[in-house]
């Protein structure tokens, strides 16, 4: 059974902010009877505790985990709450998360990450707190927490954080995005497609090809990125078509993705496919301002034996 400890007392060991320190010093100089109250939780700069003291606090918390971690999280409040004074509790929670990243702390890391994940999707936990915990999991999460993260991929306000954590974890992340995608709308849909691209999921080839025809430029570019990441040769005609976009920004972004795909294919020995892309770019970039693309393609074609 975990040891019972006073978490609030440990939180208070985090040092005061610079304004609190200044106020304490000022108060010392004021005569008795004229002392002004020390401001509580002013917006100010933090000062750090001694690293060895912080490590001792972490060890005490870990001995009393998971209860101590739950108690710590309960002290983090939504900014709209009248009890909002998160600095010390957030800081110590983060210190603890990072501390478990040390060599030999793998089990503790799993415990702490598991506690963080248990609050995800919980209607009683504010989105602010869930967002904070998601950002900690981006640092220390592993496969064990991906299912909990996946639950938030259809949440418009939290899908960005959940996706960032999943991309950082990688292991087991793809399935979460694939499961969530049919239920994703608006921003969540963009996040899911782009994340599948970031993870280079070859099974999402059709999703990427469909995305190229989307009415939203960001979805089109995410789809093109996915095609490049998985080196999808079958998508070359669609990608080249997309590279004929009217807007110079989208056109140059798409051309860049085409070139990256061609370079990748060439490196993998698929020179004929790469040549198709470079030939198209050489012949289609007729504007004097696109000469650098034309030249780049022509140079590759001239220097490559097919």
């Amino acid at each position, binding site marked *: 059974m975990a040891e019972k400890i006073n978490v609030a007392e440990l939180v208070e060991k985090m040092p005061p902010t610079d304004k609190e320190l200044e106020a304490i010093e000022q108060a010392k100089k004021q005569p008795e009877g004229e002392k002004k109250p020390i401001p509580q939780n002013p917006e100010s700069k933090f000062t750090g505790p001694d690293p060895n003291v912080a490590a001792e606090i972490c060890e005490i918390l870990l001995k009393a985990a998971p209860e101590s971690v739950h108690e710590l999280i309960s002290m983090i409040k939504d900014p709209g709450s009248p009890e909002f004074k998160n600095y010390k509790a957030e800081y110590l929670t983060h*210190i603890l998360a990072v501390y478990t990243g040390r060599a030999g702390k793998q089990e503790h890391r799993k415990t702490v990450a598991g506690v963080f994940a248990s609050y995800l999707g919980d209607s009683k936990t504010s989105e602010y707190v869930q967002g904070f915990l998601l950002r900690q999991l981006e640092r220390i999460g592993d496969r064990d927490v991906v299912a909990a993260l996946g639950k938030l991929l259809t949440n418009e306000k939290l899908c960005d954080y959940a996706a960032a954590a999943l991309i950082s974890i990688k292991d087991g992340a793809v399935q979460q995005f694939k499961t969530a995608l049919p239920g994703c709308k608006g921003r969540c849909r963009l996040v899911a497609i782009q994340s599948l691209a970031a993870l280079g999921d070859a099974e999402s080839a059709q999703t990427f090809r469909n995305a190229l025809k989307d009415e939203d430029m960001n979805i089109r570019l995410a789809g093109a990125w996915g095609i490049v990441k998985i080196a999808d040769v079958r998508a070359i005609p669609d990608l080249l078509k997309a590279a004929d976009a009217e807007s110079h920004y989208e056109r*140059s972004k798409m051309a860049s993705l085409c070139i990256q795909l061609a370079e990748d294919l060439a490196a993998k020995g698929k020179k004929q496919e790469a040549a198709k892309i470079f030939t198209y770019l050489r012949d289609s970039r007729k504007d004097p301002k696109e000469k650098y693309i034309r030249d780049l393609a022509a140079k590759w074609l001239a220097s490559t034996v097919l």
Partner: protein
Amino acid sequence: MKRNNRIARRDFLKQTIAAGIGSIMIVPRNVIGGEGYVPPSETLGGALIGCGGRGPGTFGEMQKGLNVVQLARCDVRWKGKADNKTTYTDFRYVLDRKDIDVVAIATPPHWHALISIAAMEAGKDVLCEKPMTRFIAEGRAVAEAEKRYGRIFQIGTFGRFNEAKDPKKVMIRKIMKSGLLKKCEVVIVRRGGFKVKEWSGLVNAKPQPVPPNLDWDMYVGPSPMKPYHPHRVGGTHRGYWDYEGGGLADMAQHYLDPITWTYGLDNTAPVEVEAHAPPAHPEVCGMWGWVELKYENGLTLVLDSAEWGDPWEKKKPRSVSIEDLVPEDREKLKQLPDPEPPLTFAEAVKQRKPAGGNAEAAHRTITIVHLANIAIRTGRKIKFDPVKEVIIGDEEANRLAYQPMRPPWHL
């Protein structure tokens, strides 16, 4: 040339106007001096992206030695006011313009890499404020874009140009690059000037309403979306991990740019990094004492804030001189040519050759800062592979080197 042997510009104009040929002509960029040559008389279309703080100064740097006319300015604080003709809030519309040849970027650093890459993809040359990037993966992507498109990139710090004029520094660079130094015992200590406390963020900051003129979503861009607070914008952004990396990121590229040139560190990175600092805060950049970075060749580089904890006093600073070479190698060194002086942005644009503060060099310099900040943020000694550019055996630390971006933005 003697005064009476040349045609004075004023006389020339008088004559040409009299002849009816004095009207202003805009000649396409590559016509005047042949392909790849940009004559000084040629006018380049310029844009400034990020117009507060350093913005005008950065644009001024870009104009040095070039005839650049500002055609567009872009700033996320102009929501509802930008006309999308000469003023913009979204840099993508600026890059859409084919009449823009050169772009000065003075946004907060979390935008530097993405805008630099997009600008080079769109065929523009770039002068980008320091620090170059917010994390390691960004710098590699910028360097790849520079190389792929043959565009010019110059970082907005110029310390190396002075070094290249100093014979002592040139000698050090020659020694370091020669391969003749058997044992490198160089210890470089940069103490103070990092503005650590000045560029710390605020804790207990309550979210505030976004001002109507600020496009907050565009400001946040690739970084995690957080509630608005005025301290997160307008210079004090430096104190937040989301946008920069504290005083270390703000100042160190200035201090390190001459060092990386002089000591020949432009194509490598430290292999071991250790920080003396309190545990880092999750949101705001804060205090640190010193960071010790060791290179594979034995060179030790120390950044000492002089603002927290004990100073770094493990060794005395030590440079390198010709006396460190054995006599026969001193002779060999004399036979070696001096290093080519680094090209300014203007020279690089005209000659279509990499600038002195090109993307690869700038990336290697700012990598020192990122590694230092990662050691501070993890509280652990880290080992780095300068070729693969990954942190060895520390997954969590690597996640800070390769951070996901908020869609639709990505490298």
